[in-house]
């Protein structure tokens, strides 16, 4: 039986459920924004979304394509200069959850969004750091969202853009980074959390219909599996409907061309 939802939808729903009402969330574009807005439209209406462009408490009705769509400013409680977002809001420790994506992740939750291959002679030049290095340091906790394949879950990053637990076993704590680091990694197969001692990611739950072998083979290292492996509850009809509505509104909005003045 095929699940009546896609792995991407399950990933978004699982990420959304991690956010609690009233929490202050620093949101990136794409999946984090979808998850955060799904949460806001379901169980967490007072979720505070902060976008790095400078909008405090945005309440978009469609998902922004960029981090600075007009909708984010028009629905915000306040719009401030970008330097203040990083100094007065992120660095000051006022962010409960930072949401990060990446092109590569290693077993300690360190992230690469800079280059594939050597930095000076990259095979693929990726967009780069953006706000991630400091979100990774200052948000009280980070949630990482990315699709799981052996090419994204790698034994060694080509470039470390944002610190997770570094080499694990308390290495992060010695740097003075105030945030707790990546507390959850959500993929299209399941959910990983750092082990309390080594801080190495271990699979703590998988999505319905996903096997442990499937997750292992989508991981470039020998993935640890938690003793008690849970299964994530499938999306509720409400979650699915609201997420699909959100995506439909978003697709329509993004396809709508601006009428030129000529």
């Amino acid at each position: 039986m095929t699940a009546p939802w896609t792995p991407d939808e399950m990933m978004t729903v699982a990420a959304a459920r991690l956010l609690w009402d009233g929490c202050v969330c620093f949101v990136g574009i794409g999946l984090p924004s979808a998850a955060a807005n799904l949460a806001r439209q379901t169980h967490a209406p007072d979720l505070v979304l902060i976008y790095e462009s400078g909008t405090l408490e945005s309440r978009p009705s469609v998902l922004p394509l960029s981090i600075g769509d007009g909708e984010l400013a028009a629905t915000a409680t306040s719009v401030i200069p970008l330097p203040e977002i990083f100094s007065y809001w992120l660095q000051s420790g006022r962010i409960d959850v930072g949401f990060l994506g990446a092109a590569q992740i290693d077993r300690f939750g360190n992230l690469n969004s800079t280059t594939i291959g050597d930095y000076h002679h990259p095979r693929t030049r990726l967009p780069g750091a953006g706000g991630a290095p400091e979100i990774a340091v200052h948000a009280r906790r980070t949630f990482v969202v990315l699709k799981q394949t052996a090419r994204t879950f790698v034994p060694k990053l080509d470039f470390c853009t944002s610190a997770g637990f570094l080499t694990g076993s308390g290495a992060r704590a010695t740097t003075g980074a105030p945030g707790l680091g990546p507390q959850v990694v959500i993929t299209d197969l399941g959910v990983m959390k750092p082990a309390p001692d080594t801080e190495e990611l271990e699979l703590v739950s998988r999505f319905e219909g996903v096997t442990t072998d499937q997750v292992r083979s989508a991981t470039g290292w020998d993935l640890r599996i938690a003793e008690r492996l849970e299964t994530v509850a499938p999306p509720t009809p409400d979650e699915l409907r609201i997420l699909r509505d959100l995506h439909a509104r978003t697709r329509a909005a993004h396809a709508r061309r601006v009428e030129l003045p000529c």
Partner: protein
Amino acid sequence: MLMDLKDAIAQHVEDGQTLALEGFTHLIPFAAGHEIIRQGRRDLHLIRMTPDLIYDQMIGAGCARALTFSWGGNPGVGSLHRLRDAVEKGWPHPLELHEHSHAGLAAAYTAGASHLPFGMLRGYLGTDLAQVNPDIRSVACPYTGEAIATVPALHPDITILHAQKADRRGNVLLHGIVGAGKEAALAARKLLVTVEEVVEDLGAAPNAIILPHWVVTAISHVPWGAYPSYAQGYYERDNAFYLDWDDIARDRETFLAWLDLHVMHTGDQAAFLRSLARCAAEVP
């Protein structure tokens, strides 16, 4: 102070300069960038937090020698293909990268605007960025001994912004998402601004973000000067164009043809928009 954009660029922008065209998603000075391409400026050191499509175009057109930046993608879409081509394959020129995080670059602009020799942040912890950018250093806190990351202050030769309004005295009003525009403006040696409207009275709210006339070098009246980015209160971001750009920029020939048709063969922003509209009407 009010002058044609063509004249403003010709008079102030020179080969080899350090240029910051700022605006974070919102108010990106596309018209000014296109005019720099048309006038064939070369060897520019471009600075922007998010290079966006305008720097993809300027890099692809061969204007740039170096890029200081913190995130170089097409937001929500994917790569900047011209930027990638320059970095990965050296086309049309190799591009020297000075790479930061957003927080680092914001601190560098703020230091520039404040005339401090460097900015600081609790940042760059555990990242490889400091290994590839020798400008990222640290100081020891004189009270706690903690190492605090530093970045050198930025002082662009010229910052170019797009804004909603200017008044006849030359005061400029921005509102909505302003990014690091104010800091980039005050850090620069010269400030050029394109605006949607020139008015008698800005009608600004108390504490509105205003760049006063005595820090503005030149103002050009360019309606739709931020398109396909946007000017809140005037027109929306053309997200569909940003999606289209992925196909236009992926291939060198397609890009060059687009640039030739819509930028090189148009004289100003109005002609650029007409050219795009004509093309859209032909290819539905």
